[in-house]
């Protein structure tokens, strides 16, 4: 059965402040869903409700069909959770901290040591396995936190800004871990401030602002459907540096292309009439120009434009 996370009529009030207002969201299947929103939008509140760290004013959350509010032990048994960059008991070593998680989660003794080794290797902390966590930097602790969310090989992974505190290499490694998790058909629900991270690893995005869900759709649909005038942006990578002036002119002259802007000597940003078919035609045309196209990715700026336009609409 495919993993499922569902929130029904989820509302959370802190006094008179409504942090989350009647959120209805169902995520199912193996994929990565990015959860976006400005500070105070309700992202972490949602994830805390989903993991029973706080209690809803109204509504309910389900993981694989089990109510988190009524049966938290069962609901969280197949979920890996990382919320708010937690601290680990400082006297424990990563081996012990992950051992505690494995024991409390009931990982079979035969699998325990192997899983701990595997996840420590995944987060590049093997050589620190027997050092006390209290001596670690924030980034190192966050790696152990990520490892603790994965030690039981969960079907559902809930991550609250997992790149927090990590250096660029660490952030890249987190993206790599999430991509690997997707290969195993897990459902990953990840809040993030970093749009490039979302574009890189997420298949779908949900945007929340002021406690309300603004949209939930595939990344592609979001960037086309919500763009100001229906256009989409892609970043085109070239094999070698080219004279970008004439190349930009050529690309701008292609059918459906609205503009073409050089990003650097080997990259262009192309705005075109959105949609999968138009994107396919654009790629064919770009290859036909023989300018050394080696890659085309959804532009981070496209999501950024949507994000900013949708968020500012609510302000």
């Amino acid at each position: 059965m495919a993993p499922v996370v569902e929130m029904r009529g989820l509302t959370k009030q802190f006094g008179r402040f409504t942090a989350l207002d009647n959120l209805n969201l169902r995520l199912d299947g193996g994929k990565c869903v990015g959860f976006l929103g400005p500070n105070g939008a309700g992202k972490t509140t949602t994830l805390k409700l989903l993991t029973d760290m706080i209690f809803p004013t109204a509504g309910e959350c389900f993981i694989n069909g089990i109510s988190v509010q009524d049966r938290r032990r069962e609901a969280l048994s197949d979920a890996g959770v990382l919320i708010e960059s937690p601290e680990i008991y400082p006297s424990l070593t990563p081996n012990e901290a992950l051992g505690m998680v494995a024991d409390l989660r009931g990982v079979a003794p035969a699998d325990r040591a192997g899983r701990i080794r595997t996840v420590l290797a995944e987060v590049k902390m093997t050589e620190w396995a027997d050092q006390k966590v209290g001596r670690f930097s924030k980034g190192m602790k966050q790696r152990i936190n990520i490892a603790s969310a994965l030690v039981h090989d969960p079907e559902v992974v809930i991550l609250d800004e997992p790149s927090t505190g990590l250096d660029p290499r660490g952030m890249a490694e987190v993206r790599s871990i999430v991509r690997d998790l997707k290969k195993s058909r897990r459902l990953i629900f990840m809040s993030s401030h970093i749009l490039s991270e979302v574009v890189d690893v997420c298949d779908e995005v949900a945007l929340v602002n002021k406690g309300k869900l603004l949209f939930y759709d595939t990344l592609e649909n979001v960037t086309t459907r919500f763009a100001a005038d229906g256009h989409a942006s892609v970043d085109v990578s070239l094999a070698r540096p080219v004279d970008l002036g004439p190349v930009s002119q050529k690309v701008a002259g292609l059918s459906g292309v609205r503009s073409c802007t050089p990003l650097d000597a080997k990259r262009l940003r192309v705005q075109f009439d959105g949609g999968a078919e138009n994107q396919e035609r654009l790629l064919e045309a770009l290859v036909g120009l023989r300018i050394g196209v080696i890659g085309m990715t959804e532009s981070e700026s496209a999501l950024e434009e949507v994000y900013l336009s949708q968020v500012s609409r609510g302000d």
Partner: protein
Amino acid sequence: MAAESPTTPAVRLRVPEPLPQAFKLMGYQLREYLRSRRFIALIAIIATIGALITAVVAYYHDSVALHSLLTDNQAFYGSFWAGGAGVVIVLAAVFFGGDAIAGEFQNKTGYFLMGLPLRRASVYIGKFLAAFVASVAMLLLYLAIILGNGVYYLGTNALPWELGASLVLAIVYLSAVLGATFLFSSLFKTSAYGFVLTAILFLFGFTILQELIEGLVRIQPWMVISYASSAVGGVFGTGVNWGLNGTSAGGIFWTAGIAEAVLIMLGYLVVTAAVGLWRFEHEEFT
């Protein structure tokens, strides 16, 4: 990842029942305590108290004041063991229980635990048991120091059975103090309040309250735990009241019966543990 196939989980899981989870958590929490500075600090404090007692007794052992204590085993243990045990119990409760629950919020370690398939009761009970075991270890360390002195001055044949009864009463008192400490710790998200409240109340707050109730209100102070805790030293000597009713001298100063004291201390434990657990169950990790 180690997944064998998209649909087959690679890791065999069987989430333990809540009570085994509490015991597992106790083991890791105890490991955390044993490696902590506070554990070393408390050992140092108890060793210092023991060293002072040993030095004072050694220096003044010929004096008239100490003569009666060093020739009467009931008086010796009633004075040196029972007198210090209460302080050791409060210190241990403050050191191991003062931030047990509040620290989960203040230090954000709770976020590490709360994502796990655990009942909050398992966390509360596991941490309580860890604090209890660590505190009992401290109490036994103090007992060992007193026993060392007692055996030296009185000999091994002078070990009164009442010392065993007193140790049991001290452990019951410890559980009651820890129950209250955990309650205070669960009321606040800042550890300092739990430390201060426990220390003030149990070192002199309850004693003052008891005296006020006895002296001014003139009723039996059965509701105050210091009245019950006096049983730790009350088992020594002759004419011990083992019953369920307290006795009073002139209708003012009351002495608890031993069975009554046990009931009062267990009552404190049950009530404070229930309220503290209820509070923790309803506290949000905002």
